[in-house]
């Protein structure tokens, strides 16, 4: 199996999502609060997985803009749940190359006296291996 194919399969497996169920209605992109910050839009994510273009997803800044707020997951009428695909792609990137989006060194700069532990814990889990 080619690498891209393998990675696409892995995304489907990790997310438990069948992207072929998508009917391209755009409800995910219509719901997404981070839409404007994304280069690859939520509905496009689905097509990228179908077309096995995972490298583009891996390079996409959308991975780090998704809030995992589940608005798309909740409203998707076809049970595709793009938020899960995005998280799976993020997982692949972090696992494969240790491409951590958040470096330990930069943390002190980012926190302020009020920063709740929850913020750090969540960010570390989403952004790092």
């Amino acid at each position, binding site marked *: 199996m080619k690498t891209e194919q393998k990675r696409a399969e892995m995304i489907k497996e990790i*997310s438990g999502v069948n992207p072929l169920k998508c009917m391209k209605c755009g409800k995910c992109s219509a719901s997404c*609060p981070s839409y404007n910050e994304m280069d690859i839009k939520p509905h496009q994510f689905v097509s990228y997985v179908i077309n096995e273009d995972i490298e583009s997803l891996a390079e996409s800044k959308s991975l780090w803009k998704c*809030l*995992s707020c589940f608005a798309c997951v909740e409203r998707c009428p076809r049970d595709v749940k793009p938020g899960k695909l995005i998280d799976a792609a993020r997982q692949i990137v972090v696992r494969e190359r240790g491409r951590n989006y958040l470096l330990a060194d930069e943390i002190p700069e980012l926190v302020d006296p009020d920063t*709740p532990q929850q*913020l750090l814990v969540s960010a570390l889990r*989403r952004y790092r291996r």
Partner: protein
Amino acid sequence: MKYSYFPGCTLKNKAVDLDHYARVSAEALGFELEEISEWQCCGGVYPLGTDEIATKLASVRALNDAKEHGQDLVTVCSACHHVIKRVNDDMKNVDDIRTRANNYMKLDEPYEGETTVLHYLEVLRDKVGFDELKKKVTNPLKGKKIGAYYGCLLLRPGKLMAFDDPENPTIMEDFIRAIGAEPVIYPYRNECCGGYISLKEEDMSREMCRKIEESAAGFGADMLITACPLCMYNLNKNNGDNLPVCYFTELLAEALGLKEEVDEQ
């Protein structure tokens, strides 16, 4: 009534208020929160990957502890609640995760999702009852117009969380009514505050919080309440309109006439 209680990392630190008010109010309402011994952090976000096991074990430990005590598991923090409820669902319904998690845990008796996970608000609604709560209110917060801020973690995914209607929830509004105040319904109450993204993408979070606060203020809210320390942080940090935000437990304690008692501690 005694419940197993999972406070979570933030409630032991930056959000001690949320915790203290919750405990004191519980006592006044006739239920007890028994903190789980040696609980571990839930991780803050639910690991979506179907192959993630290790990251779910902290929740499983807490759930199993509650099971062994024969108690329902109560959380106050939205994030802990979200993570633990979803892990519990996995343990109940996803064969693969259940098997593998139990293999790690090596419990005397495998954990299979037996524990009921309740948010503090659910305890108020389903166990205490808002009518009952209303009767116990000594200091009704008359005249306060309060916007409930749900955020995303409590409500979604709706079917799994089974907390309230994810698009038109009522539990916090009913709570606000029970403590004598007036709820303000505004459309952004179930939109995300930005969550953990505020660490690296401050602008995004700021924009989201602005929309939430503008919408709430536009519909006449004087203040917002939340159950989540991270929402609290984001909303406060980006508070353009100076709309006060506080934990729902603080208002609960206030309505029950216990706020000063806690504050003095």
